[in-house]
């Protein structure tokens, strides 16, 4: 108790220094809280960009289909799969798709792209297609409807109502088949690649076009709980993995996003480690200064019988109290800053990574653990940084210390 009181008083003997040191520790804590919040926010956007835009949280495909979108690799028995998904309580929605690599031509220009044949209603529960349709109307099941990406429409120089001809090769016979569509809507997902090379037609129009009645290439899935998609032992997906049918969560479908997330967490770990080192140098320095000032005092204390252990305790307690103060400020400022950015966002500029558009503001995420775990780390670190100065103080020799002060 005496040590605690002494330590507290010692801290305020040089208030300016204590405050500066405090500020140092506080700013590291705030930075760590913010960096973690930004990373969480970024991961959320990236994962959301992939799973909510088009790809879904999981997909059922024929093995090898995703490599080149070869039309022959369709799911031969989609009804059984759909039935299984429809009766699964974990699945919020699933959407069957036919994906056709084809030539897309307007009266003015021609381009290559992927035409998705989708079921308008099922798609609502899986992808963002309807919300992304910014002009015209969404698919309604009428045969000649087609939605074009914004950039593709610019390239083809078409607007609503214009004619589009799709040319593709039928499954099995490889016979060239053409069909006429009229632009019913334009969509904008964000990433240029998607807005430039994708088009959507009704599933009911795509199947006869490709000569694959009743078959689909892909079933995209959204779960009730998004965490399920990362669960490798989830029965929903395992049961569908039969023979050459493969059902995978987005982590397996998009390994580069997994890599990205891994890289981001490495980066924030490195920033954290560097901050820790820099902060501890500052703390060590400040503790030393305060000990130097008090060499005479420590000499006296030792001369009247204070044990080295007690002196170590005193110095460590000072560091501990300093850390507590700094953490209190840090938690407060960190919380205020992070929740401000949670609602207002940090301006980041426009980036496109792994097919996900990060545009405008990055919203941080505030999590309780950030205000428990990080302050504990920072406190431990500050106390650890004080060990060296504490040992130094405990070794002060009274005779020399007293002489030196005179």
């Amino acid at each position, binding site marked *: 108790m005496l040590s605690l009181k002494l330590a507290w008083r010692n801290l305020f003997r040089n208030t300016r220094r204590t405050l500066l040191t405090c500020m*140092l520790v506080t*700013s*590291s804590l705030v930075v760590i809280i913010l960096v973690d919040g930004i990373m969480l926010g970024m991961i959320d956007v990236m994962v959301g960009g992939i799973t909510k835009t088009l790809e879904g949280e999981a997909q059922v495909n024929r093995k090898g289909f995703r490599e080149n979108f070869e039309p022959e690799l369709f799911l031969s028995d989609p009804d059984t799969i759909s039935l299984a998904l429809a009766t699964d309580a974990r699945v919020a929605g699933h959407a069957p798709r036919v994906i056709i690599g084809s030539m897309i031509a307007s009266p003015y220009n021609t381009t*290559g792209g992927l035409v998705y044949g989708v079921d308008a209603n099922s798609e609502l529960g899986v992808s963002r297609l309807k919300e992304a349709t910014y002009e015209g109307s969404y698919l309604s099941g009428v045969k000649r409807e087609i939605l074009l990406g914004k950039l593709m429409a610019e*390239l083809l120089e078409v607007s609503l109502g214009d004619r589009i001809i799709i040319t593709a090769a039928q499954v099995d016979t*490889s016979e060239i088949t053409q069909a006429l569509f009229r632009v019913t809507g334009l969509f904008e997902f964000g990433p240029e690649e998607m807005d430039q090379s994708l088009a959507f037609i009704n599933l009911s129009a795509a199947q006869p076009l490709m000569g694959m009645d009743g078959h689909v290439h892909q079933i995209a899935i959204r779960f009730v709980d998004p965490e399920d998609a990362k669960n490798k032992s989830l029965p929903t997906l395992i049961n569908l993995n039969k023979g050459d049918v493969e059902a995978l969560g987005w982590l397996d479908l998009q390994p580069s996003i997994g890599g990205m997330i891994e*890289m981001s967490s490495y980066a924030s770990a490195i920033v954290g480690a560097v901050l820790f080192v*820099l*902060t501890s140098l500052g703390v060590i320095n400040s503790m030393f200064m305060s000990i130097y000032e008090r060499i005479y005092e420590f000499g006296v204390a030792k001369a009247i019988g204070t044990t080295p252990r007690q002196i170590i305790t005193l110095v460590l307690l000072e560091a501990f109290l300093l850390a507590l103060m700094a953490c209190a400020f840090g938690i407060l400022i960190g919380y205020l800053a992070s929740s401000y950015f949670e609602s207002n966002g940090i301006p980041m500029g426009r980036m496109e990574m792994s097919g996900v558009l990060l545009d405008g503001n990055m919203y941080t995420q505030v999590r309780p653990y950030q205000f428990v775990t990080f302050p504990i780390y920072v406190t431990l670190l500050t106390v650890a940084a004080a060990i060296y100065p504490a040992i130094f103080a405990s070794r002060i020799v009274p005779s020399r210390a007293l002489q030196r002060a005179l």
Partner: protein
Amino acid sequence: MLTLKLAYRNILRQRRRSLLTAFSMAGGYMLFVFSMSLLEGSWSNVVDIFTLDHTGHIQIHKDDYAKRAKIHKTIEDPKAIESTLKNQAAVTGWAPRVYSAALAYGGSKTAPAKIFGIDPTLEPTVTRILKKVSEGEYFSSQPNPDGYFPAMIGRGLANTLKLGVGDEIVLISSGADGSIANDIFSITAIIGNTTSFDRLGVFLPISAAQEFLAMGGDVHEYALLARNKHDNEQLAADLQKLLPGLTVSPWQQIEATFYRTMQSDKQGNYFTMALIVFIVFIGVLNTVLMSVLERTREFGVLKSIGCRPSELIKLIFIETVMLASISITAGLALILPVIIWFTEVGIKLDISVDMGGVVFDTMKGEFSAYVIFMPMGFMLLTAALISLPPGLRAARILPRVALGSH
């Protein structure tokens, strides 16, 4: 001179403190240089990869062909441009190209393909196409004994159509005059791998492509390499003046999405570095302020024997900047080998990330004046600024009060 000597001695008076402060500054500097080097190096590596893979440093088109490609937006007077380019010492290589989309047939299979008409002798002066031949042999403009022109196809297309070297490929497209173009080509090589941008490409000799597409002698694009890649924007502007009827664009415009992503990423890093430097200098401010407070009495004496306030400010300024310079020099000596290693060797990541349409998979350093001196200047400037408050405090010390204290 006297001030310099005094400053030097003052630094050495508290060696441990100076050393600890120096550590944190050296650490901050090293981190700054390291991250700048990695950032600049990795990005410029990516830029090299795609500029030398396909884009070139500068491209010349008719009108807005780069944004809205249309077969009839052609450069109609290639001879005039070629003679202009020949006279440009700053242009080290140039290659004409024509593009179109086509349907490709191989046996019973069909797939959409992109036609790249390239000049077999000029193309290697701009891109690394010779190195991308993964199977077979690089082609020439000459037809084979059967009268078929040679073609090189992307790995993805080869896999989809199950074609290999020596096989024939049939292309169907529409010509510039609206006619249907179709012809047989003989495959001499497979290009790249399944992730290259040209995985679905068919490379044809430009003369064969022009004939196939009924384009006469017109071309769609010139890709140029600049002698100094950092000057490409200036060079593009110069060329634009020489070629008034055409559009000359540096790669920054051609790959605008990627360029924006790169700029945003760099900005984010500057922000992180500024934070780290800020934290380092809170510690430094603390040290300098303490060392001034310790010497209150000394400064009092100095002032009473006639030392001017400005002298004291100068003294503290020189002390701080000198310590900073020493730390930075030591930091530089330590970080230099690391940077050189990263510049020469680098780390290949086992994950690849798609950044705005360009694959990013290698961490490389950059060793340049900018990377070394920008952080140096920034840190010295901050050190100079940080020395002002303690300096002002020292300058304001009243001899009477100072001598009375302690």
